């Protein structure tokens, strides 16, 4: 990322055509991208969330009988995330932590099920932890007090990750090309030999 000093150096001593070229090829698109990423992801630029949520809806037994069983799976990562999920009619949490670790997290308020809310204060261990809670979740959750839609925390498919990753790679390649072109000398009249010439407009 260019610092302010580097940007000023880039622009110093340039004439108007060169400045226009730098704006169109480098600064303009760069600014659009940086501001967009900041608006999308905030100051913590991370392309993925520190936890994933998946909603549970149905229970099926070995005879194929099905019944509604609302619940939620929360898979927390090693990143810090203070999550509060509003959840109705919940009474139990099933976790991948061993009993002592689970008890310790409960006592230290890192895991809590209370008054229609499930609280998780990651990291909960030195690896990803899975939690299953019965009950019906709402459309939103709270991340460090800020409301966010649950939809944004659902698991991302491999195809989606692949699409975003590759598109980002092509963008980097394109911007690199544009940077090189944007800093190249400006020809007064860009032209190639052998092209058709005609009189300018009357």
């Amino acid at each position: 990322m260019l610092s302010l000093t580097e940007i000023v150096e880039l622009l110093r001593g340039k004439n108007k055509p060169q400045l226009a070229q730098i704006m169109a090829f480098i600064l303009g698109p760069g600014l659009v991208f940086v501001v967009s990423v900041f608006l999308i992801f905030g100051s913590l630029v991370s392309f993925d969330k520190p936890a994933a949520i998946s909603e549970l809806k149905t229970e099926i037994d070995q005879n194929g009988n099905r019944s509604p069983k609302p619940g939620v799976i929360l898979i927390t990562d090693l990143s810090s995330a203070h999550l509060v999920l509003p959840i109705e009619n919940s009474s139990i949490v099933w976790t991948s932590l061993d009993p002592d670790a689970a008890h310790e997290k409960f006592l230290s308020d890192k895991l809590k099920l209370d008054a229609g809310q499930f609280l998780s204060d990651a990291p909960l261990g030195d690896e990803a932890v899975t939690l299953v809670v019965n009950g019906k979740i709402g459309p939103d959750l709270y991340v460090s007090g800020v409301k966010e839609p649950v939809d944004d925390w659902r698991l991302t498919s491999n195809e989606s990750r692949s699409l975003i990753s590759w598109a980002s790679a092509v963008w980097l390649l394109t911007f690199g090309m544009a940077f090189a072109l944007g800093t190249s000398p400006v020809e007064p009249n860009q032209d190639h030999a052998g092209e058709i010439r005609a009189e300018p407009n009357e």
Partner: protein
Amino acid sequence: MPGAFVAIVLIISLVIARLSMGKGRRVPGRPLDVDDGLPLPELAQSSTVFSLTALFGAYFAIASTLGLPALIGLAFGTVLGLFLDANWITRRYWNDETAEKRHFEGFLFRLLKDKGTNAVSYTFVISAVQCAYAASELLILRELAKQALGLKSQHATLLAIIVALIGYFYVLFGGYRALFRTDVVQLVLVALMAIVCGALLLWHGSAVGWKTRLFPEPQFWLLPHIGPSRWLYFYHFILATIMGSGFMLASPDTWKRVYQVIKRQTGAKSQTFALIGAGTIPYLILLPFALSINIATDGNVKTGFMRSTSVAGNVMFTAAALGLISSFLSSFNSALLSSVHLQLIQRRTLEEVSSEEPRFHVIMILSFAFTWLMFLGGLRFTTNAWLLGNFLMGPYAAIAGLQIGTRGDLSRLPRNSLHYLLAIGALIWVTYFALKYDSLKIPNKESVNTVPVGVIIFFTMALLCLLSNFVQGVMKRAKPN
């Protein structure tokens, strides 16, 4: 690895754009004065109609809710619009110039030169509408990336911004050459998506019979005391025809493509077939989608309609991703470049310079920034990704009415009058839209009802232009010598 396939296509297009840089200019220092080496303008024209806002937005909604008569009207209107454009360009410019002097920029220059503030208003409205159209494409791409490809909101927004930036660079690097050449690649991918998805949708079948989908129970575009009959279907056909032709008349990227078809001078017969083919192919591809996808059972549109069938398996995901991104790039780039070109020519009518490269760069980045801001505004102020496209129905209708009312010649209007005429059209449309906003702010079948109001705007503008031309003529004759 669907992402890898998308990356390959984007890189191929990038290489095409880079290799097109600076090539084919008629005059040095005129980056968009390129008429040679632009392949297959007919296919490129189909590619414009294959946009997310038009074909996969408004036209799809009309075909789904109103059936075959409206769909045929849209196709007929598109072809009619292409012929009207061809007639306009031939009559106003082609026949007046010698072969070696003809070029598309000459046509635009003659359109805008010596027309005072009328030309400024004309350029401003069309350029702004094209940028808004590009923003609408962005909003819909984002929404379809969520619904059809299963991306999360943030990832969909990021994907839309990245693809838009890449598209911006295509046309910044390579201008019209890059646009036309990448259009061919993109059309192939859109067609592939349409064939794969269309076949799958038809295989799964529709819950409702085909006859019912082709002629659904009329709920919109109704006439008093006339039930489902050939007269009502004829009315639907007429409304859709006006809509389809208006879109062609008001799109400067279409003018460029039609110009290229005329330039090929392949004879009247092949020109006719080229325009008919370009106009109808998109609707043949739309038909299986309209037959198979039931977007609404009542009231609100089911925005998750594509997810259940379209992303089953890697092949479908890849086809859908490639098709959506290609469709977006094609229309986004066309709209952005045509907006920039019109502004560039308008500036030239005020002041000619030896090299327009700096001007081109400045106008490109400002137009792109304007489009981006509209996209952000759309995200911030509405949850309906199709709302902006719906709103643009009015401005497109107004511009088309202006084209018809002036027969493509701004000098028929009194000097400095166009902004008043446009203000009248804008007042009617904005008032209607504000009154209907509550029913339009979520994706809803009600949105197709904006079309008849758009047609009213079209006729209002055309009549206002004819009237002002008539009044101008009367006043000129009455003026004492």
